[in-house]
C-alpha cells in the first residue's frame, strides 16, 4: 500500500508571534517552527497503516528550502521518502491543493492522509479541495469512538481501518461519532484524538539523514500558485481587560442587566 501524507511547517504554537512591519505578515526573524500537530498525527497513522499492510509512506511538503527539517522529522518518525516543493512566496490552500494534485498524479497512492487543518492559518481547506480536484471520496476528521485513555487506545485499535479497497473511518461529528466507509483511493484528514504520535528516536534521526528528499517547484509541476485569497491585515487580538469582583449575586445580576446587557 502506498500512502501519501502531507506535512506543513507551522510556527511553534508556544512562541509569541510578532506582526511584521507591513501589517500583512508575521515577523519571521528568530521564529521557531514545528511540524503541524495534525499532520504529525497523519504521519503516525500512515506509519501504523504501512506497518500493518506493507508498502511505503511518502511525505510531501510545500515551503522554503528549510522545510526539509520538518520532512526530516517525518522521515525520522518512520516515513520512507519525501517530496519537497520549494516555494518561498505566499501560498493559499487552493495553491497547495493544486500542487498536491500533481504529486498525486505522479505517485498514484492508494490513500492520502492529511491533517484536518494547520494550526497557523486554521483554514481547513486543503484536504477537501484536493479531494474535489482529484474527484476522490473524502473522509474528514478521522478520530476514535473513545477517549485515548480507553482500552481501545491501549490496544491500538485504529480509527482508520483498511480492508481491500475500502477504508472505514471513524469521524467526529457535531454531538457524536459517525462511521464512514469510503472507496480507495481517497483523501482522509485526521483529527486530534486519532492517535498519540511517536517521538522520533535518536537512531531513527540518524537514519533519516540517508533517506531521499526529492525536490520540485511549482514551475516544474506546471502549477500557477498565485494566491486567490488576499491578506488585507494582521492584528493581534485585543488585550483582555481585567475582571471585576462582585460582592453578591444581586450586584452580579445588576451588572449583567445594566452593563453587560445580557439579561433583561
Amino acid at each position, binding site marked *: 500500500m502506498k500512502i501519501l501524507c502531507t506535512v506543513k511547517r507551522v510556527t511553534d504554537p508556544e512562541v*509569541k508571534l*510578532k506582526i511584521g512591519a507591513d501589517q500583512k505578515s508575521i515577523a519571521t526573524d*528568530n521564529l521557531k517552527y*514545528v511540524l503541524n500537530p495534525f499532520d504529525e498525527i497523519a504521519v503516525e497513522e500512515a506509519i501504523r497503516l504501512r506497518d500493518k499492510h506493507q508498502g511505503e509512506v511518502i511525505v510531501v511538503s510545500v515551503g522554503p528550502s528549510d522545510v*526539509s*527539517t520538518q520532512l*526530516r*522529522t517525518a522521515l*525520522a518518525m518512520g516515513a520512507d521518502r519525501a517530496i519537497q516543493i520549494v516555494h518561498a512566496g505566499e501560498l493559499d490552500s487552493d495553491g497547495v491543493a493544486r500542487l498536491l494534485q500533481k504529486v498525486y498524479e505522479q505517485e498514484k497512492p492508494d490513500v492520502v492522509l492529511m491533517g484536518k487543518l494547520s494550526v497557523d492559518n486554521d483554514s481547513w481547506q486543503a484536504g477537501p479541495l484536493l479531494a474535489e480536484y482529484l474527484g476522490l471520496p473524502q473522509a474528514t476528521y478521522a478520530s476514535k469512538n473513545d477517549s485515548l485513555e480507553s482500552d481501545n487506545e491501549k490496544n491500538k485499535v485504529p480509527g482508520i481501518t483498511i480492508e481491500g479497497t475500502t477504508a472505514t473511518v471513524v469521524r467526529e461529528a457535531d454531538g457524536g461519532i459517525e462511521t464512514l466507509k469510503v472507496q480507495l483511493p481517497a483523501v482522509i484528514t485526521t483529527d486530534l484524538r486519532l492517535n498519540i504520535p511517536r*517521538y*522520533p*528516536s*535518536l*537512531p*531513527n*534521526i*540518524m537514519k*533519516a*539523514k540517508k533517506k531521499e528528499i526529492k525536490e520540485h517547484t511549482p514551475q516544474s509541476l506546471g502549477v500557477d500558485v498565485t494566491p486567490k485569497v488576499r491578506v488585507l491585515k494582521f492584528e493581534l487580538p485585543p488585550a483582555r481587560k481585567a475582571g471585576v469582583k462582585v460582592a453578591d449575586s444581586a450586584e452580579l445580576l445588576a451588572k449583567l442587566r445594566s452593563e453587560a446587557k445580557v439579561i433583561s
Partner: protein
Amino acid sequence: MSTPVSLEELIAWTSLLSEEERLVRASVARFVRDRCQPIIAGCFEDGEFPKQLIPELGALGVLGGNLEGYGCPGMSAVAYGLACHEIEACDSGLRSFVSVQTSLVMYAIHRFGSEAQKRKWLPEMAAGRVIGCFGLTEPDHGSDPGGMKTRAKRDGDFWRLNGSKLWITNAQIADIAVVWAKTGDDEKSVTGFIVERGAEGFSATDIPRKLSMRASVTGGLSLDDVRVSEASRLPEARGLGAPLSCLNNARFGVAFGVLGAARACLEQAIAYTMGRTQFGVPLARKQLVQQELADMANEVVKASLLSLHFARLKDEGKLSPAQVSLLKRNNCRIALEAARKSRALLGANGVSGDYHVMRHAMNLESTYTYEGTNEIHALILGRALTGESAF
C-alpha cells in the same frame, strides 16, 4: 514595555547546529516535557528514581547515544551534549543516570572490552534492559583514585576481588558493575572487571539521608572475595589511565548537562520576577533584580557557546583533557550560582518543590563535586598552564 527576548534568542546557537542536531534536541526536549517534567518533583521528594523511564530512554536512543555500532546510534558529541542538556533541564539525577550508563559503563566496555563483551552487553544496555554502574571511587579514595584499596588476585582462570566502593550512581539497581581494582601496588596495575549482580560476595548498599540527586540512585558496592572469570576482565584497560579516560568522557556530558539546569533556573527566575508584584510593580522592574538576571544570562550565554565550540573540537578528536576540565569546572560553577541566585529571586516560593529551582540547586551541589571536584579541575588546568603539578 518592549517584547522580551528569550534566552534561546540570546544564545542564538540554533543557527550553529545541523538539522540532525536540532532534531535530536527537539525530540529529547519533547520527551522530557511530556514524560519527565510532570513527575520529577515528586520523585525527588520521595527519593525515588523513576525506573519506568529506563526502557523509554532506551527506545528514544539516548543510552550509548554517542557510541558507534552494537545497537548504538553513533551521534555526534554535539547531539549527545544537547540531549544531556535537555534532560538536565529537568533534573541532574536523570542526566546522571544517562551519563553513567553511557559515558562510564558503555564507554568503558566499548573502548576497553573484548568483542564478546561488547556483543553481550552493549545492545542490551542501549535498549535499557541492562543497567550498569561504575565502581571507581572508594570510601577513603575520592580525588586520588590511584590510592584505591580494592585488590584483584589471580586464581587460575579466575580472579578474586576484595574491597569496597562508595558514591556509585546506579549501584543498587545495576545488573552489571565495571569495577576497578589493583593487581599490584602501583597505579599501572589498575584493572577493570565486569561483575554481574548476584555474584557471590558482591552486594550493594544504600546511602541514607542524601540531600542531593534524590531522584537518582547512589550507593556503595561491597566485594568480599568475589570470583570473576578471566573473560570478565576488560582486556584493553591497562592502568589508571583507563578509568580516567572514562571520567574525561563523562565530564563532557556533565558540562553540557548542567547548562540545561542553569537555563531552566534562569527562565524560571525571569518568568517569576515578571509575574510577581511587590511595592506595586513587577519585581522584574527593579534594578537589583535585573542585575542578577543580567549576570546569570551573561554566564549562561558564554558557557553555552564555549560548550558548543569544545563539542565541535571533541567531534574532530581535538579536545584536550585540560579543555574538558576548564569546561566542566566553569559550567558546574556558573550553573550552581545561577540556581542559588534564582532560588533567592523566587523568595519564599524558591524553597518550594513546585518551582524546581531549589531542587536544581541541591542537585548542582553534587555536580560541583563529582566527576572531579571544582578544585581538582583547577589543578589539572593549572598543571596544563604552568607545567607544574600541584596535586
